[in-house]
């Protein structure tokens, strides 16, 4: 039986690891290579590394650094941030990345999704969708590169991304990011009910039961940042990951 994946999601900024809250106030949490080594030893299901500044500053991925990450990862590595062309995706695959995650370029022009999928297969491509609630509390499509809420209907956009060739959808509840306050379950349910490819939910995990609830709501995989890098009420940096037996007991084998 297929396991539901539990995926540490690490944020990269100026070559260091950071953790944000609601997508702002990045706090330095350590050296990425060290963190990746620890996650590798803990046999995590998969690892996701997102460069949160690349698209904001129109910068390409930091290939040298990502290559070092890949060399330490004996599990699948997904990279996102600053990818604007098939050639960049190709270079990332060639240095050891399994999947690329695309958001900003896909919002600008969905054809990049189709191009990457046609060359490398849709299993190699994650489309990242950020959702932020507007003043009325309605979930809206959000662009993390510009910090703006967009007009396009998010469900229509999700469907379009899958039709264009996304192999997985990463859905991120911006308002829950880094809060450890639990996931946006209605959002996950809504997304899962219309998403024909695996759905990775992220944003708000603060406990193992939050992960279970997201899986119950329809997520194929659950990603978390703060939950795996912080410990205790004062948010001391400590890298953790549940033991395999714990996850099996939680989510079934």
């Amino acid at each position, binding site marked *: 039986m297929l396991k539901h994946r539990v995926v540490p999601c690490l944020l990269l900024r100026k070559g260091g690891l950071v953790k944000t809250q609601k997508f702002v106030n990045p706090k330095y949490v350590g050296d990425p290579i060290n963190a990746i080594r620890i996650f590798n030893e803990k046999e995590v299901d998969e690892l996701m590394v997102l460069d949160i500044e690349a698209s904001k500053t129109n910068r390409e991925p930091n290939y040298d650094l990502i290559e070092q990450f890949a060399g330490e990862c004996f*599990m*699948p590595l997904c990279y996102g941030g600053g990818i604007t062309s098939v050639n960049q995706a190709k270079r990332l695959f060639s240095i050891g990345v399994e999947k690329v995650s695309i958001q900003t370029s896909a919002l600008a022009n969905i054809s990049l999704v189709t191009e990457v999928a046609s060359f490398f297969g849709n*299993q190699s491509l994650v489309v990242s969708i950020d959702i932020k609630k507007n003043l009325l509390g309605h979930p809206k499509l959000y662009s993390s590169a510009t910090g703006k809420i967009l007009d396009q209907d998010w469900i229509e956009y999700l469907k379009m991304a899958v039709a264009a060739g996304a192999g997985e959808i990463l859905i991120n509840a911006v308002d829950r990011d880094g809060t450890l306050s639990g996931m946006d379950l209605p959002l996950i349910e809504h997304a899962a009910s219309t998403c024909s490819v695996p759905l990775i939910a992220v944003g708000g995990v603060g406990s193992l039961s939050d992960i279970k609830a997201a899986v119950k709501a329809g997520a194929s995989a659950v990603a978390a940042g703060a939950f795996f890098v912080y410990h205790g009420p004062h948010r001391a940096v400590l890298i953790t990951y549940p033991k395999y037996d714990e996850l099996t007991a939680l989510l079934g084998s």
Partner: protein
Amino acid sequence: MLVIIDYGLGNLASVLNMIHKVGGNTIISGDPNDLLSASKLILPGIGSFDHGVNQLEALGLFPVIKEMAAKGIPILGICLGMQLLANRSEEGRLNGLGLIDAEFKRFSLEIKSPLRIPHVGWNHVRVQKYNPLIPNDGREQRFYFTHSYHAVCAEEADVLATTEYGYPFASAFCRNNVFGVQFHPEKSHRFGMEMIKNFLEL
């Protein structure tokens, strides 16, 4: 020398990293001469079936791989590499290498199934016959998968292992010196390390 076949598709660095991790030596090459002098071959690959066939053909590697297989050189196909060892795939129209009598079909799940395609993630691999790669000693074997098409072997005897996704499918096959695995041993922690080590020791 073990050669990882470079035909412009796939995550060669990951396979290279894993071989180094378990203490092996290898080179990455798409040069027919390097392949012809190899002691073992790994055919990795991600992407679409016809694209893979075209790339192998363009480099003149089709006859080379067949020749090495006939000579008894151990060959391991991973993911798309496994698919290319077979006769054909529903995904494409071109013929594969035909080293294993199998074809690849898209997962056919019930409409109400909660399972999605592609099959992505960690799943159990159940060994079906004695083989040198994956021990059948009762220990759990789990590997990372990411694919939409799966093998259907014409000969039951070629099925090395099965995995359940909606229904059981052949997640690994082998005939004599030719092996194919649908999952990614290079990305499957200690389970993959052990398998790759076993292949190096063949």
